């Protein structure tokens, strides 16, 4: 009930609209501002036409009522009038088409780019590759949002940016012309960040591109915008736009971390360490389908508990996780340690009795 009151209060109070977001954002790139301009132009033109058309209609509804004694006229044709209302709309439309074409041609031109990011959609997470810098990672819905989905109202309010937060953000430099190369690994996704004016389908087998030159430091959020299956609503995008200097620092740090992982992949891990790491990796990457409980969602997503593969030979297990099968994604993108950990976890959690998988096993299977 309280909500209802708030809601209707809101409807009456136009100032509150801005706060609650009723209009398109202007965004932080030239493209997004152009789009906003087009949007507002077409909107106001429509309003103007509506005022004229509906004005005439309501006037006649009011003035030409039988109850007021109106007597029907008998005219039913006027070539002149019809010519006017064919030609005038055409002129208006041409007036809209010209600026729209300019914006379109500009936003499709990605040749000015100074750097590229490759974005790959997976069911239901994003993979980001920095080809030149050799950085590559996966970005999942953050765990607190995931936990709050079926939880309480308070849980959702406490979750940091409920449903719009990820475990690892895309980091981009400010004032740099960036080309996004967008593709998918399974079904069609769509990478959308409102504030950049970038929304582009991720088609499996093809690469689409888009560009943005972001002129304000900050955090920007978006969502997958193409139905991609069960968790389509749960694959957000978060981008940290940082100064060029900070960006360089970030790159160096990522590269160092990667080197550390490569180093640790050569050593032999203890089962306990693998299990602990494996649980996190599992919850982030696998639980969407196979479920936290390991029970899966048969018949589409098999259970891990009692799975023949998870309890069988290591080679088969590594094979399906590395190479995928049908709706089971390819997980080459995870590093050897994560993969070894997650498989060890799958083989020993949920009452399973499989062996331990070492990073070196994964490495040699690649």
């Amino acid at each position, binding site marked *: 009930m309280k909500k209802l009151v708030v809601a209707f209060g809101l409807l009456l109070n136009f100032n509150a609209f801005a706060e609650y977001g009723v209009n398109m954002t202007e965004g932080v790139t030239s493209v997004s501002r152009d789009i906003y301009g087009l949007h507002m132009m077409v909107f106001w033109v429509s309003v103007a036409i509506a005022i004229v058309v509906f004005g005439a209609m309501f006037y006649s509804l009011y003035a030409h009522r039988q109850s007021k004694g109106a007597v029907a006229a008998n005219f039913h044709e006027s070539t002149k009038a019809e010519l006017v209302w064919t030609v005038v709309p055409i002129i208006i439309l041409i007036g809209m088409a010209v600026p729209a074409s300019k914006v379109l041609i500009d936003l*499709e031109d990605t040749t000015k780019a100074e750097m590229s990011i490759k974005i790959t959609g997976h069911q239901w997470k994003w993979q980001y590759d920095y080809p030149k810098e050799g950085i590559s990672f996966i970005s999942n819905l953050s765990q607190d949002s995931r936990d709050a989905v079926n939880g309480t109202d308070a849980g959702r309010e406490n979750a940091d940016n409920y449903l719009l937060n990820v475990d690892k953000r895309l980091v981009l430099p400010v004032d740099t012309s960036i080309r996004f*190369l967008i593709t998918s690994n399974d079904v069609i996704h769509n990478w959308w960040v409102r504030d950049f004016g970038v929304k582009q389908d991720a088609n*499996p087998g*093809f*690469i689409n591109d888009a560009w943005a030159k972001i002129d304000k430091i900050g955090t920007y959020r978006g969502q997958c915008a193409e139905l991609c299956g069960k968790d389509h609503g749960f694959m957000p995008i978060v981008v940290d736009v940082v100064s060029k200097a900070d960006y360089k620092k970030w790159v160096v740090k990522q590269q160092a971390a990667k080197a550390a992982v490569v180093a640790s992949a050569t050593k032999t891990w203890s089962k306990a360490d693998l299990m602990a790491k494996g649980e996190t990796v599992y919850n982030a990457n696998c639980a969407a389908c196979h479920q936290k409980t390991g029970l899966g969602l048969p018949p589409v997503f098999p259970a891990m508990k009692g799975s023949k593969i998870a309890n069988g030979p290591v080679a088969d297990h590594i094979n399906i996780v590395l190479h995928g099968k*049908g709706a089971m994604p390819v997980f080459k993108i995870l590093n050897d340690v994560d993969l070894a950990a997650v498989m060890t976890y799958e083989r020993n959690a949920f009452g399973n009795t499989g062996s331990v998988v070492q990073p070196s096993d994964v490495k040699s299977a690649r």
Partner: protein
Amino acid sequence: MSKEQAYYVPHGTYWPIIGSIGIATLFVGFANQMHGVEWGGSVMALGFAITVFMMFGWLGQVVNESVSGIYNSQVDRSFRWGMSWFIFSEVMFFAAFFGALFYARQLSVPWLGGADNNIYTPELWNGFKTGWDAIAFTTPGATLQSGVEMSVPTQLVNTWGLPALNTLLLLLSGVTLTFAHHALRAGHRHQIIGWLVATIALGSAFLGFQIMEYGHAYHDGLKLTSGIYGSTFYMLTGFHGFHVTVGVIMLTVILYRIQKGHFTADNHFGFEGVAWYWHFVDVVWLGLFIFVYWL
């Protein structure tokens, strides 16, 4: 009621509901068959039988009514409109598959090779070679998303072998059918039967050669699973072959009806409807020959 203004309105009928049950059964059986359900095949066969029964019954009723002279020229015209727009809908059905063919040849295959705004795509397909017939040969990773292994043909169908012969046969059959029509108009019964038999023979020969050609192609590894080339090849020629089969069956029925003396020189919609259908199948083949086999 006045004579010139007579409308024909038929009685109630059971055939449609039987037909609905028939095709619904057919489809449900088919779907189950594909999912490996034991009884799928038999249910499918049952549905097919019901459908065939309905066709016999319904069309038989129409034929009887027509022969007993209760139709007027208006009904005849309705049938004509019906048949022509039905054929148009068939044209649009084939258009979807031709559309797929053109799209794949002109757009998606070149794009996969990096044409136009897809310059970055080859990154995904190291070693991809573009080119229409090459598609099934050089795509790396020869397993489709669905897990099906792609079949790589060793050679493609030779345009100037069986397909060219088949083109000749079908074109010829169009001509013989037209002769049959002329004979019908002129009331020469023996000639009609002769030309019709010739048409049916040509159509059947076409089908025979088509099956032979499929045999060769299959042997050379050109299968439904040979990528988009195999997909469009078999779906287009397959649906066409199916239409030829239906056409041959219909022509046979017409032959039978002619022997029964159903048609007169100026009242023979049944014949003409089938003839239109046959010419349509003919024209589709020309499209196939040019775009699937030749270019």
